């Protein structure tokens, strides 16, 4: 169970948010909403352990995630604004790298590509894919192997309707297996039974 208590963070000399409390339980999905600059991406990075809070703490089953960053890293998947692709490698090579990196058998790669309709593009260099195709390739990491916590920053950007549906299905399966999702979005993505958490801009 992921919990934030009394969380506050200062970035670039200004507080982004203060005194934030949020708990995410098994199988739960939390959708972060709020105007631009409210701190959605910041919160996701805090949850991923990529930022350290100025005050308060983030815990997993009661233990601060900062105590064991590596263990926390192994239980989460983070998909940020960047797609983490190397344009010179093919779609398959890109995904295979992440599979190897996390120790998932490379056999899972083709299934993940197919799941996002990228099978036909697998041997093209990632650099020539269209914006939405790149996004899908980035998201295909989610389908590699199960991990408890997904942190998705505007995952639907540039996706067409069919792909959004695929992503919705993937999230559904993930939650059905007890996974948690925290995602930031401005629209799209209709997640049944998701809790909406609205961030207000600090200033």
């Amino acid at each position, binding site marked *: 169970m992921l919990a934030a208590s009394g969380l506050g963070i200062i970035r670039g000399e200004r507080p982004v948010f203060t005194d934030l409390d949020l708990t995410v339980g098994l199988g739960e999905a939390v959708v972060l909403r709020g105007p631009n600059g409210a701190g959605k991406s910041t919160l996701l990075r805090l949850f991923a352990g*990529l930022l350290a809070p100025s005050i308060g703490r983030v815990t997993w089953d009661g233990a601060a995630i900062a105590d064991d960053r590596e263990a926390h890293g192994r239980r*989460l998947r983070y998909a940020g604004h*960047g797609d983490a692709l190397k344009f010179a490698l093919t779609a398959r090579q890109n995904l295979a790298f992440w599979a190897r990196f996390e120790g998932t058998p490379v056999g899972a790669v083709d299934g993940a590509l197919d799941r996002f309709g990228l099978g036909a593009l697998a041997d093209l260099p990632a650099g020539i894919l269209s914006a939405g195709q790149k996004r899908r390739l980035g998201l295909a990491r989610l389908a590699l192997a199960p991990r408890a916590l997904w942190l998705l920053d505007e995952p639907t950007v540039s996706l067409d309707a069919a792909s959004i549906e695929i992503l919705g299905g993937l999230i559904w399966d993930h939650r059905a297996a007890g996974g948690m999702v925290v995602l930031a979005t401005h629209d799209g993505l209709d997640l049944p039974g998701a809790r909406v958490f609205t961030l207000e801009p600090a200033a």
Partner: protein
Amino acid sequence: MNAFLAVLRRDLRLAFAQGGSVGLVVGFFVIAATLFPLASGPERAELARVAPAVIWIGALLATLLSLDRMFQADLEDGSLDLLLAGGAPSSLVVLAKCLAHWLSTGLPLVIVSPLLSLLLGLDGAGTIMLGKTLLLGTPTLSLIGAVGAGLTVGVRRAGILIAVLVLPLYVPVLIFGAGAVDLAMLGLDTGPSLALLGAVLLVSLPVGTLGAAAALRLAAL
């Protein structure tokens, strides 16, 4: 270990498959060594005297040329976040990236160094010693360079800041490396210089990986 091999493999593939950095490094090295006699005039004896310095400085600068993209590229496309928050020890990731960097810049330099010796008129003993010192010294350059690259990742105009941070730290390697070649050409004992180069490498192995890993974790903040 998975993570180590995966990163090593990917970075090598990017360096070689693309034809990019390896070609650049070797090309740059050979051309720079060719330009030097052109610019300074052709007296051979004098050339051979400064040749170790020229080749070693070439190695330094070639390393530097490829350093600034070591982590910056990963930062820009978002991979760095995943590499650091992916559950693998960050020092392992750094070590893999250093090794890949060395295999794609340092090692090629070691391999072409006999050609450069020939171009600049080094004698046999000097050529062999040049190869040895480069082999011992260039991994240190990659390791120390990683710290500079890590410290400046995400900083504006990182490239030249790296140079200012890292070059002073390269000085011992340069002195021992070029010095040993000079000694070898004079027929003197090079044991202590080589031992020192080895010692510097051993020290920079933990210092470089841990330092760069700590620096990168900062950058992600």
